[in-house]
């Protein structure tokens, strides 16, 4: 091949003006070690030819994600997006709501004096622990007796159920005995 033509083609190739046919012509010249082709072009075409058959293996994805995750922790400016802002705003609103609710529960719009007064009026009825103990005992006994009163019908049902089960058991036994005697 004419070395001058090859030089012209190479010039067009580097300038990005060559056509596919012209590139093909250049590749043929490189393959045949033709004169007039520069060393750079030969190296480039050889490298392209070598890498042409390369494919991504199965580990590529896992390697990539491993590298990407390692990069993540290295810091860098965090982009303050709208969704992030909305998330912070939502948390802020909820915390404000909780604070407001707690404030209302604890203080209930009452001034400090009123709270102190309530504390006094809802104080103990008895000053003597012995008397309070006796009164508590009587009150709890009252509740205990009512609880047991409520439990009575349940006990009756349980007793009835147990009796029913034992009668059914006796009937089965007698039927088995009759069968054996026959």
């Amino acid at each position: 091949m004419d070395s001058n033509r090859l030089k012209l083609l190479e010039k067009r190739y580097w300038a990005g003006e060559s056509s596919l046919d012209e590139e093909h012509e250049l590749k043929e010249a490189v393959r045949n070690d033709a004169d007039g082709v520069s060393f750079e072009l030969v190296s480039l075409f050889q490298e392209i030819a070598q890498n042409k058959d390369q494919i991504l293996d199965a580990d590529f994805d896992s390697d990539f994600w491993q590298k990407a995750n390692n990069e993540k922790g290295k810091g860098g400016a965090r982009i303050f997006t709208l969704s992030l802002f909305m998330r912070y705003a939502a948390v802020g609103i909820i915390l404000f709501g909780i604070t407001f609710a707690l404030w209302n529960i604890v203080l209930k719009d009452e001034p400090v004096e009123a709270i102190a007064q309530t504390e006094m009026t809802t104080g103990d009825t008895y000053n003597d622990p012995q008397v309070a103990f006796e009164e508590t005992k009587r009150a709890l006994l009252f509740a205990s007796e009512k609880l047991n009163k409520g439990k009575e019908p349940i006990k009756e049902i349980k007793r009835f159920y147990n009796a029913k089960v034992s009668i059914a058991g006796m009937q089965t036994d007698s039927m088995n005995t009759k069968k054996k005697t026959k």
Partner: protein
Amino acid sequence: MKTRNIISLLSVLLLSISVLQAQDAIDKYFEKYADNPEFTSIIVSSKMFELFANVQVDSPENSDFKDAIKGLKGIKILAYDQSESPNIQLTDFKSAIKKIGPEYEVLMSIDDKDEKVRFYILESGDIIKELFMVVGGNGNLFLMSLVGDIDLEKMSSLSKKMNIGGMNYLENLDEKGKTK
């Protein structure tokens, strides 16, 4: 993951708020009737319950009782007897139980000829934190709120272990705990 943690934290906070709000069902009645001379009100605070540890017990029954009230933090009682003031209709059993919030669960219900009894409980997890008792009938109304860690088995075994009768409690209440 962070969002999930925040949501869990907020749920716990909201739950605590609802428990705080729900505490002491009897408080609603106390606010309204504690200063009313027609009502008998009794309060035994958590501080007093702490002092019970120093109370001298002279019988095994009292010792059993001391054991049974471990974990309790307070009692509030509000009662009135219509026969003492027949012309004043303050409140009745029906309207009393209407005021009980949905957070309370009915534990037991007894309907007798002369008397109606309701037991309500407020639970936190598996632990009963409040036992609220309403007794009504024959012109009487009795409300009792028991706060703390409540063991119903221990409660019901009290009257079996102790020979002191509790059924006449309402009769003696007027002389002992009348509000001034």
